Each structure stands twice: as structure tokens, then as C-alpha cells.
């Protein structure tokens, strides 16, 4: 695929929980090297969209192309190869509780590369330094606070230098300062490593800092896709209220 083609293409995606339709006919393209923010009120299907793109949940119908490969049709081996180029920061960090932070980050590196131990250790130290968590390297996840856990999870998500980084509510439950430093890190990753970042959030401050493009969902439907400026000018009622009130 060439570089101008969208890195993620979602076509006519429909997602259902048993009978209830969560996502209704979503079509959207996410561009390479951009930070795309998925916005919307609670329960509008933001996380579901992310999980459907990653195939953690199977869509009822529709097409999802990542790096030009249709994930709904692809076989398991190719899916694994694609998923290795994607990093995910889950809502609550999802660190493995039974091992310390060092092992949490070393697991993906050890499993998928043949790097020597010395380099792996350096990678882990650097990634933890990037998220400003160097001191926690040999602590267990249970000894960390919520914010620290999220930062450690981010370090794990970028352990293999993914091409695409998904973040599910990275700043929820964090203080404004930590949240700002996380945003800065995301911007840096995008700038320096040309990473494509997809962020699910409803923190207004964070949206203003990082968003190149916005996907606005409203009760399962795609309301708007475009830049922040366009969104504010769009005149769509829900979006106006969202930015006026701060959050739903």
C-alpha cells in the first residue's frame, strides 16, 4: 500500500450486542500519521468501535481494513502479524497482575523478537523513561496508583514501536498535569515516530491539545468526521452542546 492511502478504513460497520445495535453503518477513514479522536457521550459506542476495529469484538457486518488488509476476511496468521504492528492502551491499563512492570513490558518484546537481553532491558528503561515512570520498573502493578498503571500500560503499548496506537480513555481518572504530560507524549510519538494514534476520550482539554481529526459518534451513528475547526463550524447541534457544556 502507498503512504497516502488511509491506514484504517472502516466501511458500513454494524455492531450488535445480541439484539441491540451499538454501531449503525459507520464508514470512516483514518489517515496515517494523524491523531484521531473518537468522541461522544457515554455509551455511544466509542469503545465498541475501537474493539471492532481491533477484532476483539466481531462486527455483525461491514468491512475493516488495516494497512490495506481486510481484517474480517483475513486468516489468523496474517491477523497476528498485523496486530503486532498495533499497540493498545486499555481503559484500566490491563497490566498483567502476576508479574512486575519490567516483565509486563518485556513479554511482547521477548515473544516477538530475538533481541538480546541487554537491548531489551534498555528498551524497557527508555520506554518507561518516556512515560516518566523509571522508578517503578521492578514494582508490581498492584503497588501502583491508577495513573501510574496507565502510564506503565502505555509503555507496554509502545514497547514494539507500533505503527498504530490505540488509547482507550488515556486521561480518564488522571489529574490534569499527568493527563497533559500523557498528551504531550502522544503528540511526540506521532511527530518523532510518525505513529498513527487513535484516542477514545471525552476530555475537552485533551481533545484541544491533541486532535488532528475528530470522529463524533451519537447513539451508534457517525455524526461527524473532520478536523476540530470544522467540527466547531459544522453547526451540528450535538457537537455544539458538547463543546459548550464540556461533557455530557
Amino acid at each position, binding site marked *: 500500500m502507498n503512504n497516502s492511502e488511509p491506514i484504517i478504513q472502516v466501511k458500513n460497520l454494524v455492531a450488535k450486542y445480541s439484539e441491540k445495535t451499538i454501531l449503525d453503518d459507520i464508514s470512516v477513514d483514518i489517515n496515517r500519521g494523524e491523531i484521531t479522536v473518537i468522541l461522544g457521550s457515554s455509551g455511544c459506542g466509542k469503545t465498541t468501535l475501537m474493539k471492532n476495529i481491533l477484532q476483539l469484538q466481531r462486527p455483525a457486518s461491514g468491512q475493516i481494513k488495516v494497512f490495506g*488488509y481486510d481484517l474480517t476476511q483475513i486468516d489468523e496468521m*496474517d491477523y497476528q*502479524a*498485523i496486530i503486532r504492528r498495533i499497540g493498545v492502551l486499555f481503559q484500566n491499563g490491563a497490566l498483567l*497482575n*502476576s508479574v512486575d512492570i*519490567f516483565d509486563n513490558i518485556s513479554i511482547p*518484546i521477548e515473544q*516477538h*523478537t*530475538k*533481541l*538480546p537481553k*541487554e*537491548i531489551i532491558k*534498555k*528498551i524497557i*528503561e*527508555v*520506554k518507561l*523513561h*518516556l512515560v516518566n515512570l*523509571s*522508578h517503578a*520498573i*521492578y514494582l*508490581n*502493578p*498492584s*503497588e501502583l496508583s491508577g495513573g501510574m498503571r496507565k502510564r506503565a500500560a502505555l509503555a507496554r503499548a509502545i514497547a*514494539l*514501536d507500533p505503527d498504530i496506537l490505540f488509547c482507550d480513555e488515556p486521561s480518564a481518572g488522571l489529574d490534569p498535569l499527568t493527563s497533559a504530560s500523557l498528551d504531550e507524549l502522544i503528540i*511526540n510519538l506521532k511527530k*518523532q*515516530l510518525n505513529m498513527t494514534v487513535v484516542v477514545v476520550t471525552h476530555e475537552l482539554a485533551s481533545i484541544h491539545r491533541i486532535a488532528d481529526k475528530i470522529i463524533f459518534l451519537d447513539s451508534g451513528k457517525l455524526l461527524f468526521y473532520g478536523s476540530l475547526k470544522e467540527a466547531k463550524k459544522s453547526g451540528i447541534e450535538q457537537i455544539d452542546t458538547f463543546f459548550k457544556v464540556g461533557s455530557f
Partner: protein
Amino acid sequence: MKKVHENSENLFVENKKILLKGDIDKFTVPLLWKQLSQINDLTGIEIIDLKHVTSIDSAGSLFIEEIASTIKDQNNLDLPIDKLYQNVTKDINDTIKVFSQTDVKTYSRKRKDPFFVLVGDLVISFITSLHEIMILASDVFYWAILGIWRKKGARKGSFTQQSLLIGMEAVPIVALLSLIIGLILSLQAAVQLRMFGADIFIADMLGYAMLTEMGAMMTAIIVSGRSGSSIASEIATMKVSEELDALKMMSINPIRYVIVPKFYAMSVCMPLLVILSIIIGILGGVFVAILYLNISATAFYNQLLNVLTLKDLLITMIKSTFFGWSIVIIGSFYGLKVEGGAEGVGKATTYSVVTSIITVIIIDVIFSLLYLP
């Protein structure tokens, strides 16, 4: 899918230079690392040429930095590391800077404690646990006795609900296992007894065994596996999700509200389950006696009455009540002690089952010694 190419020779040493070529990333670094370790001696080298490097990632950048710092050490150079790089494009230089190790603080893993320290810790934690269990037990007894008269602070219907959970729902499994134990015991004994023509004594043996030991013991082990674990995990979950703190802040004593109903239910259900177990175990023996030894049910019953005494039954009832109490208190203890989220809940459950089974056996030994016939 694009196949990852593993390069062959992309690291060269040429007049005072190290030359790197192609992609320097997580897939090529392992091989480059091998090539580098074969070179060993880097004295005299002053420059790392990155002209032909096409792309780089964190592993690659750290690898390059590793070469640079080795060169610096071996040649005693006194200059910043990045002065060693030559022909670096801006992109690659940026990446190297992002992942630079220079201001990364390193920490070392805590050393493991020596053997005797570990043993000492174990002993101390055992003693403190014992102490804490005693305190918890006294708390539970206090609130349980007080609760007989004072209904304040208890949830309505909690006793019934807990009795259903601890007692009623355990009936099928206790019955099934007791029946099987009864069958096995009497079959094994029947073969031996038959050789001596002492068939009828099967009733003595089985009746006495079920009444004094097997009934109470089997039931206690089943209940500690079933209810002990559920008590521990329930309380541990409540602790982890701050429900116990919430109760305290509503000025409700968690022990009174959560543990005491279980304690009551266990005190009532445990002896009943034991009686059930004894009866069904003996029934299993009756089957064997009738079908295998051709003893009539009446003969079996008459023989049985010779061995079963009220005293033994009373001792067993008291013993089983103690079993039940120890299961509740140990389950609650590990539940209350939990730390560290979801993983802690699993650990608490395991510890509680293991400890309560051991405790049950110890209590059994004490009772056996006290009431030796």
C-alpha cells in the same frame, strides 16, 4: 503480508569507521548484535557511519547507542556520544534522540532476602496471623452473641439467605459423597470381615467410623472447599471494591453485617449436614450389607444400636460446630486481609481453603485426644 527480511551482512568495519546499512530495527538487531560481538575489539574506531541506514526504531537506536558507548569506553574518548555519528539524516537523528539512554535513570532489582531472613519472616507472619485470627474470632463471637438479643445492624433475611447458601445448596454434594464413602468403607471392610466370618460387625465398624470421624470430617472438608472459598472470595471482593469501607462509613460494623450472618448459618447448618452425612454414609453400608454380605436390614439396625451412643453423637455435633466456626473465621480472615486487586482475591481464596482444611484436621486431632474412649 510483507515478509520481514533478516539481513545478512549489514555491519562493516572500515578504516576507523563502523558502517551500518539498511533497516536497523527490532528484526535486524539480533543479527547485528552477533556480528558486533564477533568483532570484540573496537579500539581505534572513531566514527559510526549511518549514511546507508534506511530506517530505525527504538531497538535500532539503542543498539547504535550501545556501539557508540562501547567505542567511547574502549578508546577513552571524552566527547558526547552523538559526536561519533556521521552522515545522520534528520529523521534518524530525531529517533535516536527520542530513545536516547543518556538521561534515563536505571534501577536495579531488589535483591532476594537470604534464607534465614525468609524463614524468620515466615515464622513472624505466622505468629501475627495467628494473633489477628484470634482477634477476629473474638470480634465475631462478641457480635454473634450480642446479635442474639440486638437485631440492630443486621440485614433482614440474611440468616435465611446464608443458610440456604451454606447449608441447603451443599446437601446434594454432601449426600452423594457420604453415600460413596459409606459404600467404599463397607466394601473394603466386608471383604476382610468375610474371611473371618465376622460379617455382622460391618455395622459396628461403619456406624462407629461414620459417627465419630468420617461424617464430620468429610462434611467439613466439603464445606471448607465450597463455602469457605466463597466466603473468602466474597469478603475479599468487598474489601477490594471498597464496599467494606463504605459500610464502615455508614456506621455499620462490617463484621456484624457481613460475617456474623454467615457465622450463625454455619453454626446451624454444619451439625445438620454432619447428621445427614452420617445417616447417608450408613445407608451406603446397609446396601453393601444386604447385597454383598446377605445381612438383613433388621440385623444391621439392631447391631448398629449397640455401638451408637448419645455421647459420641454429642461430641461429633460439638466438633462439627467448631469445624464450621473455624471455616467461617479463616475464610473471613483471608478475605479481610486481601490486598492488590483481583489477583489478591484468588490468592485469598486458595489460602483460606488450604488453611481451613488444615485447621479442621487439627481440631479433629484435639477432639480425638480429649475424648479418647
